[in-house]
């Protein structure tokens, strides 16, 4: 698919360039904005992978919430806009980053992706959910009539699920969350709640301070 290739390469360049910018740009505010670009590019990758629900959640959570918090923190703290001061950790940081990058490349090239395929096969529900084929068995095409296309709903399979690439993965993910993975899901929410309360407790001013 030529079109998808083009999009993939554009997104890749964007993501890598922007993430380099996040690290190299001195102005923290601009770095935070570049981080947003990285997140959006990653959302684009999700779209390419036909996981459009994940893409939207990526935008909603990472762009709409987390980046805003980062930007908020930068804006609220003064004396940052000039950029951080130079320190003597440049060489160490570069070394660590290079090592980590090399490790990632090494892992990528030496992984046996057939294992992953096997895992995917074994946990077909997850994979199916991400690609929107969860609980789907009807693959037949719709009828020839052009009148059908004036109906605004996307064509549906016999059991009510939608077919096609952009099909209904949302419901499938939801189903997974509250059926198969309900315990981890709830555990994460408890963890987040604990983190929030902890943050509040840390930030709280002692009464004698004020």
């Amino acid at each position: 698919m030529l079109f998808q290739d083009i999009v993939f390469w554009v997104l890749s360049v964007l993501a890598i360039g922007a993430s380099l910018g996040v690290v190299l740009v001195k102005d923290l505010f601009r770095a935070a904005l570049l981080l947003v670009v990285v997140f959006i590019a990653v959302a684009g990758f999700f779209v390419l992978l036909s996981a459009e629900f994940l893409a939207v959640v990526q935008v909603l959570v990472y762009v709409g919430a987390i980046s805003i918090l980062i930007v908020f923190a930068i804006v609220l703290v003064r004396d940052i806009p000039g950029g951080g001061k130079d320190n003597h950790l440049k060489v160490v940081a570069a070394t660590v980053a290079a090592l980590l990058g090399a490790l990632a490349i090494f892992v990528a090239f030496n992984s046996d992706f057939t294992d992953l395929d096997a895992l995917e096969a074994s946990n077909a529900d997850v994979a199916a959910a991400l690609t929107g084929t969860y609980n789907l068995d009807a693959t037949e095409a719709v009828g020839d009539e052009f009148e059908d296309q004036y109906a605004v709903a996307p064509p549906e399979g016999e059991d009510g699920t939608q077919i096609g690439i952009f099909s209904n993965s949302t419901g499938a993910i939801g189903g997974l969350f509250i059926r198969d993975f309900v315990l981890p899901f709830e555990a994460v929410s408890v963890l987040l709640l604990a983190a929030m309360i902890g943050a509040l407790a840390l930030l709280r001013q002692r009464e004698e301070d004020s």
Partner: protein
Amino acid sequence: MGTNFLDNSFFRNIYCNLSKSDDIRCSGGGWLGDGILPAGFEWLAFLITAVVMAMVLINLVLGSVLIFIWAERRLLGRFQSRSGPNRWGPYGTLTPVADAIKTMFKEDIVPTAADRWVFNAAPIVMMVPATMVLAVIPWGTGTFLADLNIGILFIIAITSLSTFAIVMAGWGSQNRYAMFGAMRAVAMLISYEIPMALSLLGVLMLAGSLSLVSVVNAQDVPFILVQPLGFLVFFIASIAEINRAPFDVAEAESELGAGYHSDYSGMKFGLFLNAEFMATILSAAVIVAVFLSGGRGWSFIPSQGWFIIKMIPVLFFIVWTRAAWPRMRIDQILTFAWKGLIILAFINVAVSAILSFVWPDPTMRELWFMVAINFGVLIVSVMAVGAWFGPQGASAPNMSHGDALPRPRPAGQPSGGDS
């Protein structure tokens, strides 16, 4: 490329003329025969078609922005016992055009202390969500750019991008008033996204899909009747999201000058203005699609016409409230969102969940039952939350009414008697 795009009749006509698509809906080719582009270039045909469609839609909406600006100014004039603009063109219709030309020719000033890149990028970023949301709105039967099955989530996610534009504008100006406006806007937008998303849950339960087209199709009874509480919360939250009165604290002209776009001039300011008006029109469009059954109506008017007819009262009400009500204070706005709207939205979610559990696949009669129950819930919950919210609002000491309102006493009377 998704096949769903081809459900759009305009899109299909252009696309099938351009490419030799093997899609079943292009089986006869276009009117021009078998497609102009050679095989293997379906992606190019897709791109060209998408760009053409986007151009048409964006320009239509920009045109409607001009009409809306004119209509708003005329209406505000009437509400204020004035005439409104009436000099340029018939009944002043060309006034926005004149304003646009004036805006374009104004000097583009960048403050010396400004962060140039951020400052210049902010208006562009501001336009992004306004134009992207366009894509998923079903303007009528078969008239949409894309029917994403995550349409509503897409809208909520994309509109959060405008927060960045506002922060960038406020930060880039290096102006304290702009910064104040930006901080207020961000706090408000983040707060109101939550009730906005929660209020749509009831709709999603009824429609069973996140796609706006399916939501429209599911509305045999408009959801404003079935989900009155959801509508109320969504309407208030979307007015807040588009920074309109009484939630226009981000550009509160009596406090901050012009808020986050204080330092902008010329066409950059024009872009901000344009994006705000586009957001107003688009939020009206979303309300129509989600709560007022979109383009559905009696068939003697085309569905696109119904859509526009239904948008008019929504926009009218938005302008009307702007004329009638003063601005709320930012802390009150946030209190209102967290202590009022979110509670109302949760009540709505709970009631809708119970109702859709009782009637998983409602018939018409059951739908009308739901209407009655939901209106009861609306009245009870609004009064309960209002009564609770009134005395407890953070810095809103007293919103009580009637006999409790203080009245001056004549000078002779001693104080402390009845007052």
